[in-house]
């Protein structure tokens, strides 16, 4: 039964009008994004969390709200670390965010954190694995951070609909 909850909710979200899924930027969310919801959230992990839930989803809703707060704070701190070229601090933040993203089954964000950490570990171009200049480093890091932000926005939209849609 619980295993069906996320899948049923996902199907419901796919059936919503595009207008109901407008983003903050005012543009409509691409309906096809919800066809890729399996790549955003690992259902096995999320279902396991729902199994720990209270009847009214108080527990998981609380976790998700804390994750949203944590994410917003972490992005600000990452920007600051990049600006000051404090890569050890950026690495610490990457590990931190990777951990909670993984715990909630947020696969894409977890993977992006891993890419960032690998890049910081090697300070090489993520694609060609060749030594690059520090300025190129910062460019790659900013690209990875921007990717992470977009993935987070997808997650935030989905989870808000998942919980708020039940009210």
């Amino acid at each position, binding site marked *: 039964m619980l295993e069906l909850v996320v899948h049923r909710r996902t199907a419901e979200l796919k059936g919503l009008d595009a207008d109901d899924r407008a983003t903050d930027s005012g543009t409509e969310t691409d309906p096809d994004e919800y066809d890729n919801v399996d790549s955003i959230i*690992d259902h*096995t*992990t999320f279902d*396991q*969390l729902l199994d*720990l839930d209270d009847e009214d989803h108080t*527990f998981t809703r609380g*976790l998700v709200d*804390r*994750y949203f707060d*944590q994410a917003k704070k972490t992005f600000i701190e990452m920007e600051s670390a990049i600006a000051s070229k404090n890569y050890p601090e950026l690495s*610490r933040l990457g*590990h*931190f965010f*990777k*951990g*909670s993203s*993984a*715990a*909630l*089954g947020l696969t894409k964000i*977890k993977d992006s954190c*891993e890419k960032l950490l690998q890049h910081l570990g090697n300070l090489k171009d993520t694609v060609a694995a060749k030594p690059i200049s520090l300025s190129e480093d910062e460019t790659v890091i900013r690209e990875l951070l921007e990717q992470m932000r977009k993935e987070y926005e997808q997650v935030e939209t989905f989870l808000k609909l998942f919980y708020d849609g039940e009210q």
Partner: protein
Amino acid sequence: MSSASSINSISPPSPPPSPTMSMASINSDISEQPRKIKVMIIDDNAINLTILSRLLNKHFADTIQLTSVMDSGVSALDQLSKDQVDLILMDIDMPVLSGVQTTTAIRSSDNHDILVQNKNVPIIAVTTSDAAEQRELYRQVGMADCVSKPIALPKLRMAIESAMKTIPALSTG
């Protein structure tokens, strides 16, 4: 009071112990009720601590008593100097003292602050840093096992059960 009710209220006497049972075995059967294992969890991320606490309290309530929830290796070492635990579930990537450094400090014979009873406590890494070479490092510093994040309940159960086999026979406490 009727004689029928007084008869019904009388319990038949217990059968005498078998002559083959010793008093020692009878007493040990009564006293050997296994106590719950005392567990400490350590993670710098409060969300992870909340999830793991809930997992343990729901799925391991019969066998585990979650006695310490620590948000750093430093605070864990301080706690381990005061209270005895039977099992530690520890994050790896933590600031100041990583899980590897914390484990090394626990195992170190030079660290006289840790209670002697905690020196060899089984420690299970709970981490996203779970590549083969990292698992080997955890083993080398004295960790018993490594459970990947996100935690899969069956794997956590297997790791805990395996670690529990190394814990000396528990007595009532």
